[in-house]
């Protein structure tokens, strides 16, 4: 065990920091879920990132990355959040589908989909859940009927993050007549093609953050299927492993929030309930623990291990720490907690504790509810019966 950075890692940090200082927009962009303008501003930022080869640093150069390891990815993320850089509008692509494509895609698929993903030219939504298939994802009904070299897609997807504005979606479809985990395939489709209707769904903060997607005889080439026909469930679970395990929520996100919470406490403790200091310290410890755990996981993966069911512990931990952290912030704000912040202050870079709190409440629900994660831990880590 050696918890020091190598000179190369330090040089990498310095390089990331210098580039971000020169390029991060001075004013925060409008949120990518707020409206089309905000979404396109984030797409533009992805292109700027690509211009510096920072689109997805862990990918090979041929796909638009830098081929660095997971420790350097963590360093990149630390600097990214430290710099207050814009949110990653293409996170469904670069953090979820990308690693899965890297593992299961053909060379032609990688060449087709990864470079525009890294450049933000094609922004991805996910289309897993259906009205009747949430936690019980194997209950999906949307179908992919093989027709020569094409599939014809039909069905109804919902809770599709970025679904309102994205270009592409990846979703789970089943062979007509198949049951449960069998006969499913992971298939990509364009969201602007004939037969696709998308209806934005307003989130509790008012933003159209996700959408329902109705597919009626949507024709896609078989090239758009990832992995073997019928292997969709297996591939889907691998994607979920990446999502819960490592990439969806960088520790840096919470470390920045915890540091800002400490600043908020220092500024307002004179008028606040003194017991809240313990919660501020707790939020810091939680963020630290998550970071240390992810460094440990990254080291294990570099040494050849694979992400297993322990990924589910990550998802529970970050989602719960996020809520605790933001509840603490609102408690410090006290009677002012309900007030919408001054837009000028937010534009100047102040934290939006209220909106971030609202967002944190989604954490235990999306990417597999925390109840499902606890089942996974109990059954696959602890060996309890189903």
């Amino acid at each position: 065990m050696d918890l020091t950075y190598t000179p190369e890692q330090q040089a990498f940090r310095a390089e990331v920091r210098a580039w971000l200082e020169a390029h991060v927009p001075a004013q925060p962009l409008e949120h990518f879920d707020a409206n089309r303008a905000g979404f396109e501003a984030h797409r533009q930022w992805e292109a700027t990132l690509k211009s510096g080869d920072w689109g997805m640093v862990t990918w090979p150069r041929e796909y638009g990355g830098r081929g660095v390891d997971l420790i350097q990815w963590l360093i990149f993320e630390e600097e990214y959040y430290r710099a207050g850089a814009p949110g990653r509008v293409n996170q469904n692509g670069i953090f979820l589908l990308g690693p899965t494509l890297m593992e299961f895609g053909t060379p032609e698929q990688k060449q087709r989909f990864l470079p525009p993903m890294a450049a933000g030219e094609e922004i991805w939504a996910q289309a897993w859940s259906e009205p009747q298939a949430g936690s019980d994802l194997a209950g999906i009904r949307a179908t992919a009927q093989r027709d020569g070299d094409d599939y014809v897609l039909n069905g109804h997807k919902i809770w599709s993050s970025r679904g309102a504005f994205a270009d592409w979606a990846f979703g789970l479809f089943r062979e007509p007549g198949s049951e449960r985990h069998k006969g499913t395939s992971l298939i990509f489709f364009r969201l602007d093609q004939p037969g696709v209707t998308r209806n934005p769904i307003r989130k509790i903060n008012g933003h159209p953050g996700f959408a329902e997607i109705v597919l009626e005889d949507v024709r896609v080439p078989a090239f758009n299927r990832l992995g073997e026909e019928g292997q969709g469930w297996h591939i889907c679970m691998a994607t979920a492993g990446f999502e819960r395990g490592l990439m969806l929520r960088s520790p840096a996100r919470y470390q920045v929030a915890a540091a800002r919470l400490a600043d908020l406490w220092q500024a307002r403790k004179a008028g606040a309930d003194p017991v809240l200091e313990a919660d501020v310290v707790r939020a810091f410890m939680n963020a630290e623990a998550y970071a240390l755990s992810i460094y440990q996981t990254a080291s294990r993966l570099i040494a050849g291990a694979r992400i297993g069911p322990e990924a589910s512990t990550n998802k529970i931990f970050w989602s719960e720490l996020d809520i605790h952290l933001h509840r603490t912030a609102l408690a410090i704000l006290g009677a002012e907690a309900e007030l919408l912040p001054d837009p000028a202050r937010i534009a100047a870079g102040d934290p939006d504790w209220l909106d971030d709190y609202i967002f944190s409440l989604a954490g235990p629900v999306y990417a597999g509810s925390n109840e499902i994660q606890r089942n996974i831990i109990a059954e696959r880590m602890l060996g309890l019966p189903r």
Partner: protein
Amino acid sequence: MDFTLSDEQIMFAETARTLLGDTCNSEHWRKLMEQDSAFDPARWAALVENGFTLLMLPESAGGLGLAELDMALIAQEAGYVALPEPLAESAGVAMPMLAALAPEHPLLADPAAIVAPAPAINPVVAAADQARAILIERDGHAWLAPREAVTLVAAPTIDPLRRVFRIEWNPATAEDLGPADWGLAYDRAALFAAAQGLGMAQRSVDLAVAYAKDRTQFGKPIGSYQAVKHHLASAQVAIEFARPVVLAAAAGIGAQDVYSRARVSHAKIVALEAADLAARSAIQVHGGMGYSWEVDVHLFLKRTLALTHAWGTPAHHRGRVAERLFTRTAGPDQTFAREARHA
């Protein structure tokens, strides 16, 4: 940057796990309790024979010259079996201090010798009755008093496998070893308490998992019900996010600065919280059996209570984390801040 254990570290911990699993299981706990004892000479001899008491002593003193991280891995195994003998406090805290202050001291030549640390922060001294000497903190100095020269007043404790004592001693019959690094001793003790907490937490979960697979209600094993599963999954989450903190604290303890102290304190808080949550969850999962003397879970509940407050209460340790948070820069590039600064 490499957050993995070496093969040697993993093997050494496995040796300890096997030895302790064979010599410190339910049967042994029950036998000791029947004998109203908290010390098994045969087990201590086996620990000595396998080198565990020499682990942190410098090679010049006949030791293995290993570090806190190595000892923490052994302490974790000690926690897993609620080890009654004072391996962590003697071999991990008192003996290394003695070796630093008096490298030629004859006690260091006997690997079976137990020295009990008596820091100012603890009201009682653990396993003082088994010690050859007590290492006492006074005004920043360390005093070594032969046990015969110290009056031990047993303080009954709820933990049936732990013995603690209030001590009365006289400097006239003790040896002043001079100014001592009690800060390092406190950190080591807190770290090893945290490591034991990890082991205790995992044992509580494991005991409850075994019971939940076996116990049937409504025609099914109770472990198939989500209400039961979620108790144990939550305890496991607490363990998973305490373990890397304990390991990082162990790896960084030598710096003895505000960062390393905060990390040790963080480790102690969360590892013993995990042990507490796991023990209470295990009692709940065991139902009425969990409340019985017959089931072993209460041993882990009680040891957790002791170690949670020994070597600094949670409030004490939270204060040290607060000092780091409020007097130094925090943020995502500061996780290994000390190392970054010195590099």
